[in-house]
């Protein structure tokens, strides 16, 4: 009897290894029967996605299954591209009030030398939770001060920072804190804020420093300027190579920053933009994309209406601004889809809301050639779920990151399973 059982087990085991060996050999996975929401094209009911290695080899209807491919029946499910969180503190903040676990904000006001990803904790308990919600990539932000440091884009699978890094740095983060309370508009033009004046001075000095460095490089007879860490790390910014991510909120700061970006001829992305609707046309005209801040922020002034933050995305979109959503969180970074859904509840078209967590985010972060939609040739970042991906009730069934199915267990499920044992009825 035991012998027979053992034999049976062996048979199953050998079958399993055979299967995985076969998958490895062909490296082809076919997802069949799902409603494929490509984002960039129309949804394909009963569609097929072919994954070859880390890429999408084909998307469409009635695509033949390549020989040796592993087929995943996804009938009744929806396939979406992995969502992108365009601003969060994943891996930098573990337990917000326990300082020892927080690495998002350096001391001092000017820190262009720091990089968020150099403090990233790949094993953060929050990362798998975002992943299990269908988020496959995230922009990790430094915060605080005037120049917070550099942000970087990670995928939400991998064991080390190196394995997780998609793009680093993405931008230099600059802060113009929000003003709470209503500020009466003034008839007389106001000077730029102290923040912007300080930033201007850093830019001017950095340009001078850069000229001195290149002059000395060209002519060995000239002395090198005294080493200056700040000015050195500002070089890629002033040269226009590294974009600036302006965390900016008030109408005046937005307008001042637009002027600054034009004058300094730098690449820029706006983030937060709580009062963006007041300057939507100007932002659109300047062609600066916007990463919206948390939709759980309160309006900065009651005069703006109770739903000012909720309406902001649709007003920006209608003015022609490219928008993306961000969680601005680590412990609740999983709420990213709700941010987009909330904006849809207040007028943003649902398909635009979806774009603002997928393709728009990819475009703004400069990675649209490899992610943000389900298209042939892009990385196979695919989410299979049982309903609209932005809905609160939706269950995520499978997540593929670069063609590999991800483990969706989290500290949530681990703790729950552990304690379920206590409540199990004795048999």
């Amino acid at each position, binding site marked *: 009897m035991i012998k027979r059982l053992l034999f049976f087990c062996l048979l199953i085991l050998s079958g399993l290894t055979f299967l995985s060996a076969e998958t490895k050999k062909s490296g082809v996975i076919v997802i069949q029967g799902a409603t494929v929401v490509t984002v960039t094209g129309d949804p394909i009911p009963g569609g097929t996605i072919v994954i070859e290695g880390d890429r999408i080899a084909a998307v469409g209807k009635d695509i033949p299954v390549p020989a040796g491919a592993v087929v995943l029946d996804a009938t009744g499910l929806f396939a979406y591209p992995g969502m992108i969180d365009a601003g969060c503190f994943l891996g930098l903040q*573990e*337990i*917000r*009030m*326990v300082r020892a676990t927080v690495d998002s904000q350096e001391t001092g006001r000017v820190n262009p030398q720091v990089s968020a990803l150099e403090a990233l904790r790949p094993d953060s*308990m*929050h990362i798998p939770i975002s992943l299990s919600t269908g988020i496959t990539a995230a922009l990790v932000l430094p915060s605080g001060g005037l120049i917070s440091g550099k942000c970087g884009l990670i995928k939400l699978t991998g064991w080390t920072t190196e394995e997780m890094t998609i793009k680093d740095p993405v931008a230099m983060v600059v802060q113009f804190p929000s003003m709470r309370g209503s500020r009466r508009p003034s008839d007389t033009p106001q000077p730029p804020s102290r923040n912007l004046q300080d930033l201007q001075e850093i830019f001017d000095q950095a340009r001078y420093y850069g000229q001195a460095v290149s002059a000395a490089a060209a002519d060995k007879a000239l002395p090198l300027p005294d080493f200056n860490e700040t000015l050195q790390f500002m070089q890629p910014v002033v040269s226009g190579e590294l974009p600036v991510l302006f965390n900016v909120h008030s109408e005046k700061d937005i307008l001042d920053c637009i002027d600054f970006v034009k004058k300094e001829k730098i690449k820029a992305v706006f983030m937060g933009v709580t009062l963006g609707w007041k300057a939507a046309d100007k932002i659109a005209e300047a062609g600066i994309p916007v990463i919206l801040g948390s939709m*759980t*922020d*309160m309006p900065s002034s*009651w005069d703006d*209406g*109770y*739903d000012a933050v*909720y309406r902001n995305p649709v007003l920006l979109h209608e003015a022609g601004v490219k928008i993306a959503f961000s969680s601005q969180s*680590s*412990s*609740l970074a*999983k709420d990213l*889809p*709700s941010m987009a*859904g*909330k904006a*849809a*509840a*207040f007028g943003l078209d*649902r398909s635009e809301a979806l774009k603002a967590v997928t393709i728009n985010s990819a475009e703004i972060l400069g990675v649209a050639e490899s992610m943000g939609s389900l298209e042939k040739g892009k990385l196979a970042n695919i989410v299979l779920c049982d309903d609209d991906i*932005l*809905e*609160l*009730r*939706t*269950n995520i069934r499978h997540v593929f990151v670069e063609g590999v199915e991800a483990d969706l267990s989290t*500290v*949530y*499920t681990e*703790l*729950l399973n552990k*304690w379920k044992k*206590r*409540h199990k009825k004795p048999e």
Partner: protein
Amino acid sequence: MNRRFYIITVVFLLIGTALPTFAQDVLIKNGTVLTVTKGTIENGDVLIKKGIITRIGNNIEAPAGFKVIDATGLYVMPGIIDSHTHIALTGTNEGTDAITSEVKMRDVINSEDPGIFTALSGGVTMVHTMHGSANPIAGENVTLKLKWGKTAEDMLVSEAFRTLKFALGENPKRANSFGPTRGTPRYPQTRMGVIAIIRREFLRAKQYKEDWDRYNQAVKKNKRLIPPRKDLRLEPLVEMLEGKMFARVHAYQADETLEFIALAKEMGFKIACFEHVSEAFKITKELVEENIGISIFADGWAYKMEASQGIAYNAGYATKKGVLVSINSDSGERIRRLFNDAAKAMKYGGLNEEEALRLITINPAIQLGVDKIVGSLEVGKHGDIALFREHPMSIYTRCEKTIVEGEVYFDREKGGEK
């Protein structure tokens, strides 16, 4: 002539003051009525007379003089109840002493707090607004109807349980960031001390009660006896021992929650509800056995050490195990999206739509002792209603109107202004 003019004026004035009664006569017509306790009625109507629901069904005609609200395409649900918040108060923490049972939130109601309006914009009609968590024994909480624009007196819900706030764990441990004693360590600084100081106060209260009982007996024979000195700090604890008031206990960890249950048994008082209880999923057995509800976040967690195991499955799992769960805001912002938070228990915990709706309607009503008057749409209950576009458990929903006792206090069509 003059006299007649005055009489007419007075008559008109009287009619004018009588009008608010009519304002509470309303028919909500042709919506999807989510009664919560009695199923869903498609194309349903709700008739409210003088603020009370008198009929629910189909094809109800509006009696003369009734205002009609067209709910075509809308979802009609009971007003949301927040079992734990701090809005509409001018103060939250009397943090100078560890024990401040004498303070009452009803003394500091701020009827003009915009938080009331924010809450209404999210369909909330009733709140249990509480003392903060700086003290092991804090103060008496208060339950309010959100009648924005009316006085504090108008908002009080006299039917609600009287509740006293207790707090365990990190907050009472680290409290002395308040007032002139800021920085000076205040006893207690440990969880040992927190339990010990609450026990001490109840022992004092028992003795105080005994002193008064003895006096009350003795004074019958000797009218000249001097009564014991009144102690306003101990009086509420005596009321707790007499079952006139119940404990609402801020507790995150499973261990301290169980310790408090043991302490309540030892001292002989009743617990109405535990607050936050990030780790309720560890002790559903005890919570069910003791019949104690929990008022928790949907998924707020990991902001401090004691909340670091507050998994999002907590509400759904505890509900399935039979615990009376409500989802609270504890915040003047989250209060406007409790319906979103409730929906999270569908994903994490597998509740259905009605079970999820219960977390913000009838369950908090039961916890506050007001389930006979609010918490579901039933004949005889108050006309406290929220109208939503899309099902309230959908992320695409939004609150269109909020009605308290038949009166519209939030109307999105009117720019949200009343």
